[in-house]
Each structure stands twice: as structure tokens, then as C-alpha cells.
């Protein structure tokens, strides 16, 4: 490649006249050309080398700036720095464990609160069913008390309610009146009232509880069924897996009683 270039550049000089003077000038021209080429090559090499030097210099300065700050430190300094770092690590570790504990506590509190809430809700449901402010469903029985002679007295119906409660009835309604803890049965035969509401025969009692136990309690000798029949009425008991007690009682606001802690 270099030879080709040289010959091509020298041909024009060769061409016009091959005088002895030219012959004499040729080596110096060659020399000059070669010299110029060498100069150019050298300049390029110098440029590349200095460029590399500048690059390496900048890179080295940068990397020294960033990560080798402790290279020149004395041993005692390094030891004290190490101690500081260790102490800092201990402090940070302690902080981590404290934060962990706090987090655990908070999570615990959270789950405790959730559990308490669930429990409170369950309690509210139970109490609602108990005092009649919530509709309920479940196994139980449907008892119809017919009273053709209007002879069923409040005492008989109250006895039936008490017997059902005694047999484990969880909640019940008579006709469309929910029976609660303070329900009162008043009036006289044929014109009974429960909590002030008129109920008419036949009295349909819907009870939720163990159907077997409830039915047995109604049928014991001298029990509710016997009393009703004595009064001229009749009792029909149908056990069911699904009784819906959906009459509701308004919730009494306690006027005097305050909860104690």
C-alpha cells in the first residue's frame, strides 16, 4: 500500500524529463515525501497516545475521587473508622429490631382489633336474635293452636311460651308478634294481646330450636298440649328444618340503666 502510493506520486516527476538533474533530485524528493509521511504517522500516533493519556488521567481521577478515599489513611484512623462503622451498624441493627417489634405489635393489635370486631359483630347478632331485633332462621317447629271456643287464656299461651323457652327455644313469634324477654301476654280468652297487639286464633307459633326437644316438651302429659285440649282447643305441631322467624321487635332504649365497666 505504501509502496504503491510512493510510486504513483513519483511517476509524474519521472514522466516529463529524465534529466540527470531530476535523477539527482529524486532521492531528496523521495526522502522528503517519506519524511512527510513519517511526520504524519508520528503526529497521528502522538495524538492517539496523548488522547489515551488524557482519557486515562480523567478516568483515574474520577475513580480516585469516588472510591479510594481511605487508601492513604493511617492504620489507627482506619481502625477508628472501622469502629465507628461497626457502632453505626449495631445502632442500625438495634433500630431494625425495634422497628420490627413495633411492626409486630401493630400487626398484633390490628388482628386483635379485627378479632374483637368480629366477636362484637357475632355478639350483636346473637343479642339481636335474642331480643328480636333481627330476623332469624333455622330448624324448629311450627305450632298451631286452634281455639274454636275462645277459651284459651293468656295463662295458657304464656305457659306455652315458657315451656318452649324451657325446652331451649332460641327465638319465636306468635302470629306476627316476636316474643322477646319482656313480652307480655294480656287480654282475655278470644281477645289476646301480646305486647299490646291483638292476636287472633288460631295462634301460629314459629319457634327456632331443637325440633325434637321442643315437640317433646309440648306433648308431655299435663303440658301445653294437654292444657289446650282441656280448654277445648287443639295443637298441631309440624317439625321443620327451616323455620323463618321474621317478625321484629323494636329495640327498647334503656331509660335508667347504664352499662357499667
Amino acid at each position, binding site marked *: 500500500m505504501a509502496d504503491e502510493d510512493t510510486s504513483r506520486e513519483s511517476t509524474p516527476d519521472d514522466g516529463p524529463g529524465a534529466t540527470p538533474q531530476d535523477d539527482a533530485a529524486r532521492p531528496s524528493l523521495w526522502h522528503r515525501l517519506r519524511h512527510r509521511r513519517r511526520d504524519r504517522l508520528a503526529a497521528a500516533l502522538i495524538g492517539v497516545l496523548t*488522547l489515551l493519556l*488524557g*482519557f486515562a488521567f*480523567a478516568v483515574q481521577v474520577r475513580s480516585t475521587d469516588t472510591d479510594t478515599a481511605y487508601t492513604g489513611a493511617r492504620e489507627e484512623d482506619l481502625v477508628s473508622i472501622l469502629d465507628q462503622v461497626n457502632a453505626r451498624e449495631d445502632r442500625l441493627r438495634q433500630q431494625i429490631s425495634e422497628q420490627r417489634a413495633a411492626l409486630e405489635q401493630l400487626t398484633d393489635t390490628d388482628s386483635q382489633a379485627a378479632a374483637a370486631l368480629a366477636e362484637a359483630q357475632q355478639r350483636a347478632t346473637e343479642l339481636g336474635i335474642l331480643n328480636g331485633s333481627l330476623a332469624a332462621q333455622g330448624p324448629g317447629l311450627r305450632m298451631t293452636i286452634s281455639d274454636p271456643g275462645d277459651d284459651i287464656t293468656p295463662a295458657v299461651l304464656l305457659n306455652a311460651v315458657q315451656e318452649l323457652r324451657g325446652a331451649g327455644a332460641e327465638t319465636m313469634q306468635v302470629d306476627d308478634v316476636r316474643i322477646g324477654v319482656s313480652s307480655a301476654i294480656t287480654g282475655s280468652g278470644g281477645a289476646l294481646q301480646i305486647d299490646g297487639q291483638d292476636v287472633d286464633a288460631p295462634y301460629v307459633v314459629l319457634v327456632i330450636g331443637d325440633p325434637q326437644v321442643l315437640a317433646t316438651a309440648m306433648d308431655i302429659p299435663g303440658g301445653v298440649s294437654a292444657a289446650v285440649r282441656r280448654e277445648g282447643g287443639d295443637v298441631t305441631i309440624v317439625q321443620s328444618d327451616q323455620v323463618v322467624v321474621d317478625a321484629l321487635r323494636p329495640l327498647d332504649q334503656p331509660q335508667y340503666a347504664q352499662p357499667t365497666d
Partner: protein
Amino acid sequence: MIPILGLAVGVVLGLLLDPSVPVWLQPYLPIAVVAALDAVFGGIRARFDGIFDAKVFVVSFVSNVVVAALIVFLGDQLGVGAQLSTAVVVVLGIRIFGNAAAIRRHLFRA
């Protein structure tokens, strides 16, 4: 002109690209830079003395860098890398000081 230009472009490139030095090169790069600086100062002095030769400069530049790196490499292999690095830096530093003094005499005639 070309060396100054090359230096400037190299510095700018190095600052802009900001490459991380590979680990195997980390012990040698500073020594190589110092050796190259020594060659550059030698070249400037030769220029002032009027005896600058491009070939000599290029060869001395490359050989300086290679020899310096080689010495540090040998020192690392022998377990005295840090000491040999210091020795190389001291020697090159003395040379740079000498060259700088010669340049100074040329520039300020003092």
C-alpha cells in the same frame, strides 16, 4: 498542537463517558498515567531543546508505560507491589521534576 488537542479531547471523553476502571487494571492505571506524564514532559523538554524526535517520543511513551506497568505487575507477583509502585512513582516524579526544571529554564530563562 496535536498533543494538546489529544489531551483535551481525551480528558473530555474520560469525563463524559466516565467508565469504571476494570479491577485488573486498577493497580496499573495510575502508574501508567504517571509514566506517560513523564514521557510527555520529556517530549516538551526535547522540543525546547530542539532535539524533539517523534519516533523517540512515541517509543519512549509506550516503553515507559509498559515498563512501569510491568514493574508494578512484578511487584504484585512478588508481594511488594505497593512498595514498587511507590518506587516507580518516586523515580518518575524526580524525572518529571527534572524535566519541568529544564522547561522552566527555557521558558523563563531562570
